[in-house]
């Protein structure tokens, strides 16, 4: 059932009329899945919106939304839009100092916060940003004794809303009816690998078009279930959990807590799933660890059938011709390995799974497709509602992100940059016409900043960030992300940063995966006292060196990549962390910042030293800071002769 309406609030009301009793949102609370029907959602949105209106929220005002994926926070999105206001979701794990910037930029007076933790942060923000007048909280726990002005609970606000609704009959309906497709529907702040965050203004028309394109491509609708567990401030979540939800009319499922997502997913068995590559990586790491702990016969069976899956699994999913014996064996494998594995991953009922946000390692991608999970890629960014390219069923190529989505035009600029024009392109950056002019050209093309190529069938292949792609002294093209993704496919490696632009050789920083390597060490009886100690163990360095040797062998066999093999590496003494500004909130590497912060280590890597002492400031989650110091060893990696292009 598809619903046509020009704005999100009107889409909601249409669902409430057409399928009032169908489940719209579920949330696990006190161990039980609680449901809201479309009629319930419409009623609560109405109460919430009227409550906001009674406090003076009006058209054009911004409502900041801070918290994890909770039904009430999604309702707040639509409530703000119902009043022709604009929801501004913010990353809930941002510290107060980061949040202040966006609250000030968007001149926020009204905030809805999830719980005490967020309220504390907002009260801290209010000290420098007194414009914040009202803070509404969803979970009252621990807030009983707070008596700050302007602080009230979700229920209290709804009560105010009911009174307002009675006193102003027809107000809500008039307000919703007045909304137009060209109104700004949401402001999403870009995490920004460089510089300050910018608010991206997207209209109802753009996001609805983007949502509709996805829903039609994959035939989504009532009966489909999706897990909503990614930050609401991320464009991907907004596309899937708001735009597609309201266009398609399927069911959102909010987990009990961030930790329980895996369990909750197994219980719900979503049919539609979306995760950034790192989530899929994390799941695979968890499986790999458990398989290594399994008994020998199970390990043998797993290895045998996974080898078969790698050979034919992806072809079977693509509908390509596969021999009868292989098909039979695959069916057997499905019974004993792939089926149970999908079940453990909570993916038994998955019809469509998507990944985006960063390039996914081809091996990782192949793994999921080979066990029968229809994992596909799409491509887009905040400025394009995350809607530029989609992989269509049956036309999935491992190396590409698919072809242009309905309503989108693609062009590759002379310097290799991907340019996009069409329905989902941003209206502009909030209060930043200068920045808007930089990315939108006179022909209406948005400059993505990604370097890519279009193949003969019009499929887009992204190579790297245009600004990250460099040249080595020898003239070879250096694409750091490409190499890092190969490294990150190993469960033992959590994060990697490669350097090589304008240098003779490539060198790398590596972060070990504490869980995977810790488990590995325990099984070998290797004693360690925490992350720093483990990362510095000679055995661990050897383990990482083996991974790097495999990547080098891989690079050597690829055309034009042989010269970018990793010469030396260092295992960092601390995890790269968004709290220390080393990663963005979406966990992309901030290359320039890291190069500056760890300049002494880079000099050591290229200076022929054997080890280097470093002392680093770290911020803990509660805002305190401390110092971590270590002496890091520099390890030479094994390199292979590069295959010549002519061979």
């Amino acid at each position, binding site marked *: 059932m598809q619903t046509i309406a020009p704005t999100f609030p009107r889409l909601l009301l249409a669902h409430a009329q057409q399928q009032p009793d169908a489940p719209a949102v579920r949330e696990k609370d006190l161990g*039980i899945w609680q449901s809201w029907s479309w009629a319930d959602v419409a009623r609560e949105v109405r109460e919430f919106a009227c409550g906001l209106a009674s406090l003076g929220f009006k058209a054009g005002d911004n409502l900041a939304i801070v918290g994890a994926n909770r039904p009430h926070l999604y309702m707040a999105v639509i409530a703000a839009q119902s009043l022709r206001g604009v929801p501004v979701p913010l990353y809930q794990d941002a510290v107060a100092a980061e949040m202040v910037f966006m609250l000030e930029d968007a001149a926020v007076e009204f905030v809805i916060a999830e719980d005490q933790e967020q309220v504390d942060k907002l009260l801290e923000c209010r000290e420098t940003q007194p414009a914040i007048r009202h803070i509404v909280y969803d979970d009252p*726990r621990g807030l009983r004794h707070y008596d700050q002005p302007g602080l009230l609970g979700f229920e209290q606000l709804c009560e105010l809303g009911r009174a307002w609704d009675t006193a102003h009959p027809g107000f809500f309906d008039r307000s919703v009816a007045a909304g137009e497709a060209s109104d700004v529907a949401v402001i999403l702040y870009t995490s920004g690998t460089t510089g300050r965050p910018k608010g991206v203004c997207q209209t109802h028309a753009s996001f609805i078009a983007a949502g509709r394109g996805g829903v039609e491509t994959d035939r989504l609708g009532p009966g489909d279930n999706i897990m909503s567990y990614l930050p609401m401030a991320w464009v991907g979540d907004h596309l899937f959990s708001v735009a597609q939800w309201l266009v398609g009319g399927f069911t959102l499922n909010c987990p009990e*807590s961030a930790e329980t997502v895996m369990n909750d997913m197994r219980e719900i068995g979503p049919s539609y799933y979306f995760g950034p590559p790192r989530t899929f990586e994390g799941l695979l790491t968890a499986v790999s660890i458990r398989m290594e702990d399994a008994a020998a016969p199970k390990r043998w069976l797993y290895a045998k059938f996974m080898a078969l899956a790698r050979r034919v699994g992806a072809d079977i999913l693509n509908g390509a011709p596969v021999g009868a014996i292989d098909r039979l064996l695959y069916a057997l494998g499905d019974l004993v390995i792939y089926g149970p594995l999908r079940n453990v991953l909570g993916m038994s009922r998955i019809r469509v799974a998507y990944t985006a946000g960063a390039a996914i390692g081809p091996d990782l991608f192949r793994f999921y497709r080979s066990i029968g999970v229809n994992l596909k890629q799409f491509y887009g960014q905040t400025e394009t509602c995350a809607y530029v390219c989609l992989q269509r069923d049956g036309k999935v190529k491992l190396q590409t992100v698919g072809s242009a989505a309905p309503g989108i035009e693609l062009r590759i600029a002379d310097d290799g940059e991907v340019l996009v024009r069409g329905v989902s392109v941003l209206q502009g950056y909030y209060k930043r016409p200068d920045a808007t002019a930089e990315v939108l050209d006179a022909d209406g093309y948005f400059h993505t900043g990604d370097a890519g190529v279009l193949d003969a069938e019009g499929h887009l292949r992204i190579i790297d960030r245009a600004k990250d792609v460099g040249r080595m002294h020898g003239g070879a093209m250096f694409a750091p992300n490409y190499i890092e993704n190969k490294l990150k496919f190993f469960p033992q490696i959590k994060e990697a940063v490669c350097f090589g632009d304008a240098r003779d050789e490539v060198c790398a920083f590596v972060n070990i995966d504490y869980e995977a390597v810790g488990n590995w060490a325990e099984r070998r009886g290797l004693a360690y006292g925490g992350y720093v100690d483990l990362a510095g163990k000679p055995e661990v360095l050897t383990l990482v060196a083996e991974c790097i040797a495999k990547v080098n062998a891989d690079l050597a066999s690829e055309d034009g990549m042989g010269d970018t093999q990793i010469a030396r590496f260092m295992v960092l003494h601390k995890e790269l962390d968004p709290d220390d500004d080393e990663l963005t909130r979406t966990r992309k590497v901030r290359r320039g910042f890291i190069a500056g912060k760890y300049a002494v280590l880079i000099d050591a890597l290229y200076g022929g030293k054997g080890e280097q002492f470093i002392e680093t400031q770290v911020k803990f989650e509660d805002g305190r800071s401390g110092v971590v110091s270590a002496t890091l060893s520099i390890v030479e990696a094994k390199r292979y002769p590069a295959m010549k292009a002519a061979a």
Partner: protein
Amino acid sequence: MNSRKIGDVILDVQNISLSFGGVKALTDISFDVREHEVRAIIGPNGAGKSSMLNCINGVYQPQQGAITFRGRHFKHMNSRQVAEMGVARTFQNLALFKGMSVLDNIMTGRNLKMKCGLLAQALHWGPAAREEIAQREFVERIIDFLEIQLHRKTPVGRLPYGLQKRVDLGRALAMEPQVLLLDEPMAGMNVEEKQDMSRFILDVNDEFGTTIVLIEHDMGVVMDISDRVVVLDYGRKIGDGSPDEVRANPDVISAYLGTVH
């Protein structure tokens, strides 16, 4: 921000003496606990802290002295009676059912609240089933409160120590206690686990108004979260008062740091 009100004396311990044969564990100890406060008992190893707790909760019967709880006078306490009066405790060395899930362990804390008989419970018959559902809801609130949803179905023995301590606290909370006795809730924990546990103890005190009596070794923690502190040494009381008073008490300093002779 903390606006909880400390009330009248709820528990009054008068002149308690306890000995095991010739060994004097406690000598003439008196102190009181006021409603809604966090009261700490500290002291070096073997000072008699756990013995004191065991007297309050009826495990040991002191030879001399008396305990007044909510105006009722007791020569010695009886552990079932104590539980029924709303006093719950956790244990220094954990006394959980290792093979049972987190959920079932906390459920056992609701035992006193269940009215149905053994047979009805075993058959999960009508009223017994309804009763269990009602009790389960309460237990789920505790699980939510202590943020252990992920481990709901995990056997307790498989959990790390810090989490087992949290389950132990959960089971005590399941009794809806008015007074909670905590025996070294932070023993053997790392700094982060200690911070979490301190937060939970303060939250319990704040949210439910539960009076808390705790034994703890970590002076930093005690001074941070307690309203008043009793100091024991070799079975005798050597100090009593606010954290600041106790910290300045010369007897306490010498007991902890040793005196120069």
